């Protein structure tokens, strides 16, 4: 029953997240976590909430997969949780990449409160799949000081060059190695997100 509830709310959340997140660049994984069913990617394309609503576990239509789990749910029905019109196509028109994704449980994103610390502003978002947290994303981390000075310098000097200059690489990962994070604010925001999610 809990899963069913999550499935329904997840639909609504992921649909809104789809709209909201489309406009927000750079939401991706910060570090550590968590490859649950499939490894997460550090890039925004890695976890795509738009993939979830259509991913019937066995290729069934979205409608049947929901009604099987929640025949008497008091929650808003599927038709109110989704924009009407997407139903007929059976695939969200905004998500061509869904064809390459394996079926997965309903995914939703929950954003924690913003927390200030002496270095700046921290805000964490979690991605929940079923009843598991599959990803924690720092929407905002402190900047300034070393980071900004150097990144500005570096972009000026090395923009467009390749070779030995450090590059970004996106790939499916199990975990990330990096220097220790500013953690208390992260923890507070993460806890807020978790409390909202469950």
């Amino acid at each position: 029953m809990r899963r069913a509830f999550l499935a329904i709310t997840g639909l609504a959340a992921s649909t809104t997240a789809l709209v909201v997140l489309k406009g927000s660049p750079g939401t991706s994984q910060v570090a550590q976590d968590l490859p649950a069913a499939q490894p997460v990617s550090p890039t925004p394309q890695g976890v795509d909430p738009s993939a979830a609503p259509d991913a019937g576990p066995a290729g069934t239509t979205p409608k049947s997969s929901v009604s099987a789990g929640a025949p008497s749910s008091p929650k808003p029905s599927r038709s109110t949780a989704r924009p009407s019109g997407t139903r007929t196509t059976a695939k969200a028109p905004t998500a061509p990449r869904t064809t390459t994704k394996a079926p997965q449980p309903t995914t939703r994103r929950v954003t924690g409160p913003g927390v200030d610390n002496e270095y700046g502003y921290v805000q964490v978002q979690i991605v929940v799949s079923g009843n598991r947290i599959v990803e924690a994303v720092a929407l905002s981390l402190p900047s300034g000081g070393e980071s900004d000075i150097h990144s500005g310098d570096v972009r000026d000097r090395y923009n467009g060059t390749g070779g030995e200059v450090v590059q970004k690489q996106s790939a499916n990962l199990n975990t990330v190695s990096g220097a220790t994070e500013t953690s208390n604010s992260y923890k507070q925001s993460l806890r807020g997100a978790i409390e909202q999610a469950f």
Partner: protein
Amino acid sequence: MPAAMTRPGLCRVEQIMGTAITLDLADDLPPERLRELADQVFAWMREVDARFSTYRADSEVSRFDRGEVLLSEASADLRFVLEACADLWGATDGFFDAYATGRLDPSGFVKGWAAQVASDRLLAAGAANHCVNAGGDVRVRGFSPSGEPWRIGIRHPWDPMATCLVVAGTDLAVATSGVYERGRHVLDPRRGAPAGGLRSVTVVGTDLGVSDAYATAALAMGAAGIGWLDRLPDHTHAVITDDARQFLSTSLPLTD
């Protein structure tokens, strides 16, 4: 009803030692056994934190530093750590210095060591496929839940949302020290001043405490640390300098 997660194992995160500790057990063991193993790992990490935290006045490390605990009275763990730090001080030409700040602070070794011990115990307990990530210091063994070698991203030193390299393996201790998170907190113990020249140092070996200490030491050495890392037996590295150049061991287990 969404499909249940079908991967074997268990994944758990807790905040200990002022950072996130992530445990990923990939062995297909009974759920209660997995929970028991995870409980043991996190109990150990909390025990290490209580014993070695320099932020707690009542930790054994703090009491030892104030002279309230004699070496002969110290726990076996504390004596082991002090001895390891002394060895690392020698092995790094003094650049790994648990007394760099003027008081005893073995944190540059303890976090990696604690994760290493946790991993050793998991292996001994029959959980040979796992990943322990203690605040960015990573120990992996065996295979990931997908049955492939573990894939470990190295954080991009200018972009907290990105990684710049990926290493993969079935028996790796990957530690990264950088100046990007807490500023130049790593001191050059010879000058007493913040180290310069390198922005991020990743060392890959098989003992996470040692990898962690080597990464910290190389960061403190600055540009000279690259040559020093090159001469280290049994370890590989990825260094990124302040001007965004990267220097990699030819034998670094990189993957796409």
